[in-house]
Protein backbone atom coordinates (compact mmCIF):
# COMPACT_ATOMS: atom_id res chain seq x y z
CA UNK A 1 0.00 0.00 0.00
CA UNK A 2 1.42 3.36 -0.95
CA UNK A 3 1.56 6.20 1.57
CA UNK A 4 -0.94 8.40 -0.31
CA UNK A 5 -3.71 5.86 -0.02
CA UNK A 6 -2.87 5.30 3.66
CA UNK A 7 -3.21 9.02 4.34
CA UNK A 8 -6.41 9.10 2.28
CA UNK A 9 -7.87 6.20 4.25
CA UNK A 10 -6.91 7.92 7.50
CA UNK A 11 -8.62 11.15 6.42
CA UNK A 12 -11.76 9.29 5.38
CA UNK A 13 -11.87 7.53 8.74
CA UNK A 14 -11.42 10.81 10.61
CA UNK A 15 -14.16 12.38 8.48
CA UNK A 16 -16.60 9.56 9.19
CA UNK A 17 -15.81 9.44 12.88
CA UNK A 18 -16.16 13.19 13.30
CA UNK A 19 -19.34 13.04 11.27
CA UNK A 20 -21.18 11.09 13.92
CA UNK A 21 -22.20 13.22 16.92
CA UNK A 22 -21.44 10.42 19.34
CA UNK A 23 -17.92 9.80 18.07
CA UNK A 24 -17.35 13.55 17.88
CA UNK A 25 -18.38 13.94 21.50
CA UNK A 26 -15.95 11.24 22.59
CA UNK A 27 -13.05 12.60 20.53
CA UNK A 28 -13.76 16.16 21.70
CA UNK A 29 -13.33 15.09 25.33
CA UNK A 30 -9.63 14.55 24.61
CA UNK A 31 -8.95 17.26 22.03
CA UNK A 32 -10.63 20.16 23.84
CA UNK A 33 -8.13 20.48 26.72
CA UNK A 34 -5.19 20.12 24.30
CA UNK A 35 -6.43 23.03 22.21
CA UNK A 36 -7.09 25.11 25.33
CA UNK A 37 -3.67 24.45 26.76
CA UNK A 38 -1.88 25.22 23.48
CA UNK A 39 -3.80 28.45 23.15
CA UNK A 40 -2.94 29.49 26.71
CA UNK A 41 0.80 28.72 26.34
CA UNK A 42 0.99 30.58 23.02
CA UNK A 43 -0.95 33.52 24.50
CA UNK A 44 1.41 33.83 27.47
CA UNK A 45 4.51 33.61 25.23
CA UNK A 46 3.07 36.04 22.69
CA UNK A 47 1.98 38.52 25.35
CA UNK A 48 5.37 38.37 27.08
CA UNK A 49 7.31 38.90 23.86
CA UNK A 50 4.87 41.47 22.52
CA UNK A 51 4.55 43.61 25.64
CA UNK A 52 8.06 43.29 27.12
CA UNK A 53 10.54 42.27 24.44
CA UNK A 54 9.37 43.85 21.19
CA UNK A 55 10.85 47.33 20.66
CA UNK A 56 8.53 50.31 20.40
CA UNK A 57 7.62 51.36 16.88
CA UNK A 58 9.61 54.39 15.72
CA UNK A 59 6.46 56.12 14.42
CA UNK A 60 3.64 54.91 16.65
CA UNK A 61 5.59 54.37 19.87
CA UNK A 62 4.11 51.85 22.26
CA UNK A 63 0.59 52.20 20.82
CA UNK A 64 1.52 49.70 18.11
CA UNK A 65 1.36 46.93 20.75
CA UNK A 66 -2.40 46.90 20.10
CA UNK A 67 -1.49 45.07 16.89
CA UNK A 68 -0.99 41.90 18.93
CA UNK A 69 -4.67 41.66 19.74
CA UNK A 70 -6.13 43.60 16.82
CA UNK A 71 -4.61 41.66 13.92
CA UNK A 72 -5.31 38.18 15.39
CA UNK A 73 -8.94 39.18 15.98
CA UNK A 74 -9.28 40.59 12.46
CA UNK A 75 -7.59 37.52 10.98
CA UNK A 76 -9.88 35.20 12.92
CA UNK A 77 -13.00 37.15 11.93
CA UNK A 78 -12.36 36.17 8.29
CA UNK A 79 -10.99 32.71 9.05
CA UNK A 80 -14.06 31.80 11.12
CA UNK A 81 -16.32 32.97 8.32
CA UNK A 82 -14.49 30.73 5.87
CA UNK A 83 -14.74 27.76 8.26
CA UNK A 84 -18.43 28.48 8.81
CA UNK A 85 -19.22 28.68 5.09
CA UNK A 86 -17.18 25.54 4.31
CA UNK A 87 -18.93 23.62 7.07
CA UNK A 88 -22.29 24.91 5.83
CA UNK A 89 -21.51 23.74 2.30
CA UNK A 90 -20.41 20.30 3.57
CA UNK A 91 -23.63 20.09 5.58
CA UNK A 92 -25.81 21.00 2.59
CA UNK A 93 -24.02 18.76 0.07
CA UNK A 94 -23.33 15.63 2.15
CA UNK A 95 -26.11 16.14 4.72
CA UNK A 96 -23.62 15.83 7.53
CA UNK A 97 -25.08 16.59 10.95
CA UNK A 98 -21.85 17.70 12.59
CA UNK A 99 -21.03 20.17 9.82
CA UNK A 100 -24.13 22.19 10.70
CA UNK A 101 -23.16 22.10 14.37
CA UNK A 102 -19.70 23.46 13.51
CA UNK A 103 -21.22 26.19 11.33
CA UNK A 104 -23.74 27.30 13.95
CA UNK A 105 -21.25 27.27 16.81
CA UNK A 106 -18.78 29.28 14.70
CA UNK A 107 -21.15 32.18 14.08
CA UNK A 108 -21.18 33.74 17.60
CA UNK A 109 -17.43 33.17 17.96
CA UNK A 110 -16.80 34.90 14.65
CA UNK A 111 -19.05 37.76 15.71
CA UNK A 112 -17.04 38.20 18.93
CA UNK A 113 -13.75 38.25 17.00
CA UNK A 114 -15.17 40.75 14.52
CA UNK A 115 -16.46 43.00 17.30
CA UNK A 116 -13.06 42.77 19.02
CA UNK A 117 -11.26 43.71 15.80
CA UNK A 118 -13.59 46.67 15.37
CA UNK A 119 -13.28 47.95 18.92
CA UNK A 120 -9.50 47.51 19.18
CA UNK A 121 -9.10 49.05 15.73
CA UNK A 122 -11.15 52.01 16.83
CA UNK A 123 -9.18 52.43 20.08
CA UNK A 124 -5.96 52.20 18.08
CA UNK A 125 -7.29 54.76 15.63
CA UNK A 126 -7.78 57.35 18.37
CA UNK A 127 -4.06 58.17 18.93
CA UNK A 128 -3.06 57.48 15.32
CA UNK A 129 -5.82 59.13 13.30
CA UNK A 130 -6.98 61.41 16.12
CA UNK A 131 -10.52 60.05 15.86
CA UNK A 132 -12.39 56.96 17.02
CA UNK A 133 -13.84 56.12 13.67
CA UNK A 134 -12.68 56.61 10.11
CA UNK A 135 -14.49 55.29 7.07
CA UNK A 136 -11.42 53.27 6.31
CA UNK A 137 -11.94 50.32 3.97
CA UNK A 138 -10.86 47.69 6.49
CA UNK A 139 -12.91 49.01 9.41
CA UNK A 140 -15.98 49.38 7.19
CA UNK A 141 -15.60 45.85 5.78
CA UNK A 142 -15.30 44.49 9.31
CA UNK A 143 -18.49 46.31 10.29
CA UNK A 144 -20.37 44.77 7.37
CA UNK A 145 -18.91 41.37 8.26
CA UNK A 146 -20.33 41.78 11.77
CA UNK A 147 -23.78 42.33 10.30
CA UNK A 148 -23.37 39.23 8.13
CA UNK A 149 -22.65 37.21 11.28
CA UNK A 150 -25.73 38.73 12.96
CA UNK A 151 -27.80 37.74 9.93
CA UNK A 152 -26.62 34.13 10.10
CA UNK A 153 -27.33 33.92 13.83
CA UNK A 154 -30.73 35.60 13.53
CA UNK A 155 -31.74 33.25 10.71
CA UNK A 156 -30.87 30.18 12.73
CA UNK A 157 -32.83 31.34 15.75
CA UNK A 158 -35.88 32.46 13.76
CA UNK A 159 -36.90 28.93 12.75
CA UNK A 160 -38.61 26.59 15.17
CA UNK A 161 -37.69 23.34 13.46
CA UNK A 162 -33.99 22.62 13.81
CA UNK A 163 -33.42 20.94 10.44
CA UNK A 164 -34.97 23.84 8.53
CA UNK A 165 -33.06 26.35 10.63
CA UNK A 166 -29.80 24.57 9.86
CA UNK A 167 -30.43 24.56 6.13
CA UNK A 168 -31.58 28.18 6.01
CA UNK A 169 -28.55 29.30 8.01
CA UNK A 170 -26.21 27.29 5.79
CA UNK A 171 -27.69 28.81 2.62
CA UNK A 172 -27.12 32.30 3.97
CA UNK A 173 -23.54 31.53 5.01
CA UNK A 174 -22.74 30.26 1.51
CA UNK A 175 -24.34 33.28 -0.16
CA UNK A 176 -22.30 35.51 2.16
CA UNK A 177 -19.06 33.90 1.06
CA UNK A 178 -19.86 34.73 -2.57
CA UNK A 179 -20.64 38.33 -1.73
CA UNK A 180 -17.88 39.10 0.84
CA UNK A 181 -15.19 39.63 -1.84
CA UNK A 182 -17.53 41.90 -3.81
CA UNK A 183 -18.31 43.90 -0.68
CA UNK A 184 -14.63 44.18 0.13
CA UNK A 185 -13.76 45.35 -3.38
CA UNK A 186 -16.59 47.88 -3.47
CA UNK A 187 -15.79 49.29 -0.04
CA UNK A 188 -12.15 49.64 -1.04
CA UNK A 189 -13.10 51.59 -4.15
CA UNK A 190 -15.52 53.73 -2.16
CA UNK A 191 -13.03 54.61 0.56
CA UNK A 192 -10.45 55.55 -2.07
CA UNK A 193 -12.99 58.22 -3.09
CA UNK A 194 -12.98 59.51 0.46
CA UNK A 195 -9.18 59.40 0.48
CA UNK A 196 -9.15 57.52 3.75
CA UNK A 197 -5.57 57.26 4.86
CA UNK A 198 -4.58 53.69 5.62
CA UNK A 199 -1.89 53.91 8.24
CA UNK A 200 -1.99 50.33 9.41
CA UNK A 201 1.32 49.09 8.02
CA UNK A 202 0.71 45.44 8.68
CA UNK A 203 2.93 44.34 5.82
CA UNK A 204 4.66 41.17 6.91
CA UNK A 205 8.19 41.30 5.52
CA UNK A 206 8.78 44.95 6.46
CA UNK A 207 8.31 44.10 10.11
CA UNK A 208 11.46 43.17 12.05
CA UNK A 209 11.55 39.67 13.48
CA UNK A 210 11.25 40.68 17.14
CA UNK A 211 7.99 42.46 16.31
CA UNK A 212 6.72 39.75 13.96
CA UNK A 213 7.34 36.70 16.18
CA UNK A 214 4.89 37.76 18.92
CA UNK A 215 2.31 38.57 16.25
CA UNK A 216 2.57 35.08 14.77
CA UNK A 217 2.39 33.56 18.26
CA UNK A 218 -0.72 35.58 19.07
CA UNK A 219 -2.41 34.64 15.79
CA UNK A 220 -1.68 30.96 16.48
CA UNK A 221 -2.97 31.37 20.02
CA UNK A 222 -6.22 32.89 18.73
CA UNK A 223 -6.54 30.06 16.19
CA UNK A 224 -6.18 27.42 18.87
CA UNK A 225 -8.55 29.38 21.07
CA UNK A 226 -11.12 29.29 18.28
CA UNK A 227 -10.66 25.52 18.08
CA UNK A 228 -11.00 25.25 21.85
CA UNK A 229 -14.13 27.38 22.06
CA UNK A 230 -15.59 25.61 19.01
CA UNK A 231 -15.10 22.20 20.64
CA UNK A 232 -16.66 23.47 23.88
CA UNK A 233 -19.76 24.92 22.28
CA UNK A 234 -20.09 22.08 19.75
CA UNK A 235 -20.14 19.64 22.67
CA UNK A 236 -22.95 21.66 24.23
CA UNK A 237 -24.83 21.71 20.94
CA UNK A 238 -24.43 17.94 20.48
CA UNK A 239 -25.71 17.29 23.99
CA UNK A 240 -28.73 19.52 23.34
CA UNK A 241 -29.51 18.08 19.91
CA UNK A 242 -29.11 14.44 21.00
CA UNK A 243 -30.51 14.75 24.52
CA UNK A 244 -33.18 12.14 23.73
CA UNK A 245 -30.70 9.55 22.48
CA UNK A 246 -29.51 6.63 24.56
CA UNK A 247 -25.79 7.38 24.43
CA UNK A 248 -26.18 10.89 25.87
CA UNK A 249 -28.25 9.54 28.75
CA UNK A 250 -25.68 6.82 29.37
CA UNK A 251 -22.81 9.32 29.28
CA UNK A 252 -24.57 11.69 31.69
CA UNK A 253 -25.57 8.96 34.17
CA UNK A 254 -22.01 7.59 34.06
CA UNK A 255 -20.65 11.04 34.87
CA UNK A 256 -23.17 11.51 37.71
CA UNK A 257 -22.01 8.36 39.53
Amino acid at each position, binding site marked *: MNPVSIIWKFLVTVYHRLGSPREFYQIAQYTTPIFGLLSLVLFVCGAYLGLFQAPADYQQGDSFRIIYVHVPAAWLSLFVYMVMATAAAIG*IIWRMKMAFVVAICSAPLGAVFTALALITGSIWGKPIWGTWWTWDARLTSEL*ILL*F*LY*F*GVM*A*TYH*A*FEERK*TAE*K*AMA*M*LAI*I*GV*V*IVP*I*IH*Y*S*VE*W*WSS*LHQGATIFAEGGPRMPADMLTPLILMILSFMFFYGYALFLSAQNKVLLNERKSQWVKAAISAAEK
Partner: protein
Amino acid sequence: MNTLLLYFKREWQLLFRNTGALIQPLVFFIIIALLFPFSLPAEITLLQKIGGGIIWVAAVLASLLSLENMFQSDYQDGTLEQAIIHQRSLEMAMLGKVLAHWSATGLFLTVFSPLLCLTFNIPSEQIWVLFFGLLLGTPSLTLIGAVGAAITVTLRRGGVLIAIIILPLYIPVLIFGAGMLSQSAQGLEITSQLYTLAAIFVLAITLAPFAIASALRATIN
Protein backbone atom coordinates in the same frame (compact mmCIF):
# COMPACT_ATOMS: atom_id res chain seq x y z
CA MET B 1 -37.58 29.42 -21.40
CA ASN B 2 -41.28 28.65 -21.71
CA THR B 3 -41.52 28.19 -17.96
CA LEU B 4 -39.91 31.57 -17.46
CA LEU B 5 -42.42 33.33 -19.72
CA LEU B 6 -45.32 31.40 -18.21
CA TYR B 7 -44.42 32.47 -14.68
CA PHE B 8 -43.66 36.00 -15.81
CA LYS B 9 -47.14 36.33 -17.31
CA ARG B 10 -48.85 34.68 -14.37
CA GLU B 11 -47.12 36.99 -11.91
CA TRP B 12 -48.13 40.03 -13.94
CA GLN B 13 -51.76 38.93 -14.00
CA LEU B 14 -51.72 38.46 -10.25
CA LEU B 15 -50.05 41.82 -9.67
CA PHE B 16 -52.56 43.66 -11.80
CA ARG B 17 -55.43 42.10 -9.94
CA ASN B 18 -53.99 43.62 -6.76
CA THR B 19 -53.11 47.18 -7.74
CA GLY B 20 -52.50 48.18 -4.11
CA ALA B 21 -49.42 45.98 -3.88
CA LEU B 22 -48.24 47.47 -7.15
CA ILE B 23 -48.47 51.09 -6.04
CA GLN B 24 -47.43 50.79 -2.39
CA PRO B 25 -43.65 50.43 -2.97
CA LEU B 26 -43.72 53.41 -5.32
CA VAL B 27 -45.54 55.62 -2.81
CA PHE B 28 -43.19 54.41 -0.08
CA PHE B 29 -40.22 55.29 -2.28
CA ILE B 30 -41.44 58.84 -2.87
CA ILE B 31 -42.38 59.44 0.79
CA ILE B 32 -38.98 58.22 2.09
CA ALA B 33 -37.15 60.49 -0.32
CA LEU B 34 -39.32 63.45 0.59
CA LEU B 35 -38.70 62.97 4.32
CA PHE B 36 -35.08 64.00 3.93
CA PRO B 37 -35.62 67.67 3.00
CA PHE B 38 -37.63 68.03 6.22
CA SER B 39 -34.81 66.66 8.35
CA LEU B 40 -31.99 68.65 6.75
CA PRO B 41 -31.03 72.33 6.82
CA ALA B 42 -32.90 74.24 4.14
CA GLU B 43 -30.12 74.68 1.59
CA ILE B 44 -30.74 74.06 -2.07
CA THR B 45 -27.07 73.28 -2.75
CA LEU B 46 -26.98 70.66 -0.02
CA LEU B 47 -30.02 68.85 -1.40
CA GLN B 48 -28.54 69.04 -4.87
CA LYS B 49 -25.39 67.41 -3.60
CA ILE B 50 -26.93 64.56 -1.60
CA GLY B 51 -30.23 64.13 -3.46
CA GLY B 52 -28.92 61.26 -5.59
CA GLY B 53 -27.75 59.35 -2.54
CA ILE B 54 -31.12 59.89 -0.85
CA ILE B 55 -32.96 58.55 -3.88
CA TRP B 56 -30.71 55.50 -3.93
CA VAL B 57 -31.37 54.77 -0.24
CA ALA B 58 -35.11 55.23 -0.81
CA ALA B 59 -34.96 52.81 -3.77
CA VAL B 60 -33.12 50.23 -1.65
CA LEU B 61 -35.70 50.51 1.15
CA ALA B 62 -38.63 50.36 -1.27
CA SER B 63 -37.33 47.22 -2.94
CA LEU B 64 -36.74 45.74 0.51
CA LEU B 65 -40.34 46.50 1.50
CA SER B 66 -41.76 44.71 -1.50
CA LEU B 67 -39.73 41.55 -0.85
CA GLU B 68 -41.81 40.13 1.96
CA ASN B 69 -44.88 39.36 -0.12
CA MET B 70 -42.88 38.11 -3.11
CA PHE B 71 -43.27 34.41 -2.23
CA GLN B 72 -45.60 34.76 0.75
CA SER B 73 -49.01 34.43 -0.95
CA ASP B 74 -47.81 31.63 -3.24
CA TYR B 75 -46.54 29.79 -0.18
CA GLN B 76 -49.78 30.20 1.72
CA ASP B 77 -52.07 28.95 -1.05
CA GLY B 78 -49.78 26.01 -1.83
CA THR B 79 -48.77 27.11 -5.34
CA LEU B 80 -45.11 27.19 -4.35
CA GLU B 81 -45.20 23.67 -2.99
CA GLN B 82 -46.81 22.46 -6.21
CA ALA B 83 -44.12 24.21 -8.23
CA ILE B 84 -41.38 22.58 -6.17
CA ILE B 85 -42.85 19.13 -6.69
CA HIS B 86 -43.91 19.37 -10.34
CA GLN B 87 -41.80 22.04 -11.98
CA ARG B 88 -38.89 20.53 -13.86
CA SER B 89 -36.99 23.80 -13.79
CA LEU B 90 -37.82 25.58 -10.58
CA GLU B 91 -34.90 27.94 -11.26
CA MET B 92 -36.39 29.25 -14.51
CA ALA B 93 -39.85 29.51 -13.01
CA MET B 94 -38.57 31.56 -10.08
CA LEU B 95 -36.47 33.74 -12.39
CA GLY B 96 -39.62 34.57 -14.33
CA LYS B 97 -41.42 35.40 -11.12
CA VAL B 98 -38.62 37.61 -9.83
CA LEU B 99 -38.25 39.48 -13.12
CA ALA B 100 -41.98 40.15 -13.17
CA HIS B 101 -41.72 41.37 -9.61
CA TRP B 102 -38.88 43.69 -10.60
CA SER B 103 -40.78 45.15 -13.53
CA ALA B 104 -43.63 45.94 -11.16
CA THR B 105 -41.45 47.55 -8.46
CA GLY B 106 -37.88 48.41 -9.48
CA LEU B 107 -38.79 49.49 -13.01
CA PHE B 108 -41.61 51.66 -11.68
CA LEU B 109 -39.27 53.37 -9.22
CA THR B 110 -36.73 53.97 -11.96
CA VAL B 111 -39.31 55.52 -14.26
CA PHE B 112 -40.50 57.86 -11.52
CA SER B 113 -37.05 58.76 -10.19
CA PRO B 114 -36.50 61.73 -12.59
CA LEU B 115 -39.55 63.39 -11.05
CA LEU B 116 -37.96 63.14 -7.61
CA CYS B 117 -34.71 64.48 -9.04
CA LEU B 118 -36.55 67.61 -10.13
CA THR B 119 -37.74 68.28 -6.57
CA PHE B 120 -34.12 68.05 -5.41
CA ASN B 121 -32.92 70.39 -8.18
CA ILE B 122 -30.55 67.79 -9.53
CA PRO B 123 -29.02 68.92 -12.87
CA SER B 124 -30.37 67.15 -15.94
CA GLU B 125 -27.22 65.27 -16.98
CA GLN B 126 -27.08 63.78 -13.49
CA ILE B 127 -30.70 62.70 -13.78
CA TRP B 128 -29.66 60.46 -16.66
CA VAL B 129 -26.83 59.00 -14.62
CA LEU B 130 -29.24 58.23 -11.79
CA PHE B 131 -31.82 56.83 -14.18
CA PHE B 132 -29.43 54.38 -15.83
CA GLY B 133 -27.83 53.53 -12.50
CA LEU B 134 -31.22 52.57 -11.08
CA LEU B 135 -32.13 50.70 -14.25
CA LEU B 136 -29.00 48.56 -13.91
CA GLY B 137 -28.99 48.37 -10.12
CA THR B 138 -32.58 47.63 -9.12
CA PRO B 139 -32.75 44.22 -10.90
CA SER B 140 -29.71 43.14 -8.88
CA LEU B 141 -31.42 44.42 -5.72
CA THR B 142 -34.56 42.41 -6.48
CA LEU B 143 -32.59 39.27 -7.39
CA ILE B 144 -30.43 39.39 -4.24
CA GLY B 145 -33.45 40.25 -2.13
CA ALA B 146 -35.44 37.35 -3.58
CA VAL B 147 -32.88 34.94 -2.13
CA GLY B 148 -33.51 36.40 1.34
CA ALA B 149 -37.26 36.25 0.75
CA ALA B 150 -36.94 32.58 -0.27
CA ILE B 151 -34.94 31.73 2.86
CA THR B 152 -37.49 33.36 5.16
CA VAL B 153 -40.68 32.39 3.29
CA THR B 154 -41.91 29.90 5.89
CA LEU B 155 -41.61 32.39 8.76
CA ARG B 156 -44.75 34.19 9.79
CA ARG B 157 -42.99 37.41 10.68
CA GLY B 158 -39.94 37.47 8.44
CA GLY B 159 -39.90 41.18 7.67
CA VAL B 160 -37.20 42.34 10.06
CA LEU B 161 -35.13 39.23 9.47
CA ILE B 162 -35.14 39.86 5.69
CA ALA B 163 -33.87 43.37 6.36
CA ILE B 164 -31.05 42.13 8.58
CA ILE B 165 -30.03 39.45 6.09
CA ILE B 166 -30.35 41.45 2.90
CA LEU B 167 -29.32 45.04 3.63
CA PRO B 168 -25.59 44.22 4.09
CA LEU B 169 -25.68 42.37 0.77
CA TYR B 170 -27.11 45.48 -0.93
CA ILE B 171 -24.09 47.59 -0.04
CA PRO B 172 -22.01 46.95 -3.21
CA VAL B 173 -24.88 47.96 -5.50
CA LEU B 174 -25.52 51.04 -3.37
CA ILE B 175 -21.85 52.01 -3.37
CA PHE B 176 -21.44 51.82 -7.14
CA GLY B 177 -24.87 53.26 -7.92
CA ALA B 178 -24.51 56.27 -5.67
CA GLY B 179 -20.77 56.53 -6.30
CA MET B 180 -21.46 56.95 -9.98
CA LEU B 181 -23.42 60.11 -9.19
CA SER B 182 -20.71 61.74 -7.11
CA GLN B 183 -18.16 60.81 -9.78
CA SER B 184 -20.18 62.43 -12.54
CA ALA B 185 -20.84 65.50 -10.35
CA GLN B 186 -17.07 66.03 -10.33
CA GLY B 187 -16.99 65.59 -14.09
CA LEU B 188 -15.23 62.21 -13.95
CA GLU B 189 -15.72 59.14 -16.12
CA ILE B 190 -18.38 56.73 -14.88
CA THR B 191 -18.01 53.86 -17.37
CA SER B 192 -16.08 51.64 -14.94
CA GLN B 193 -18.87 51.92 -12.35
CA LEU B 194 -21.47 51.18 -15.01
CA TYR B 195 -19.51 48.08 -16.01
CA THR B 196 -19.23 47.00 -12.37
CA LEU B 197 -22.99 47.42 -11.87
CA ALA B 198 -23.55 45.39 -15.04
CA ALA B 199 -21.15 42.71 -13.78
CA ILE B 200 -22.99 42.50 -10.46
CA PHE B 201 -26.24 42.17 -12.41
CA VAL B 202 -24.88 39.34 -14.57
CA LEU B 203 -23.56 37.56 -11.49
CA ALA B 204 -26.89 38.01 -9.68
CA ILE B 205 -29.04 36.83 -12.58
CA THR B 206 -26.95 33.68 -13.08
CA LEU B 207 -26.53 32.68 -9.42
CA ALA B 208 -29.69 33.98 -7.73
CA PRO B 209 -32.16 31.58 -9.45
CA PHE B 210 -30.18 28.58 -8.19
CA ALA B 211 -29.92 30.05 -4.70
CA ILE B 212 -33.65 30.86 -4.66
CA ALA B 213 -34.63 27.39 -5.84
CA SER B 214 -32.41 25.54 -3.38
CA ALA B 215 -33.49 27.82 -0.51
CA LEU B 216 -37.14 27.09 -1.31
CA ARG B 217 -36.46 23.35 -1.57
CA ALA B 218 -34.59 23.44 1.76
CA THR B 219 -37.15 25.37 3.80
CA ILE B 220 -40.46 24.12 2.35
CA ASN B 221 -41.15 20.45 2.96
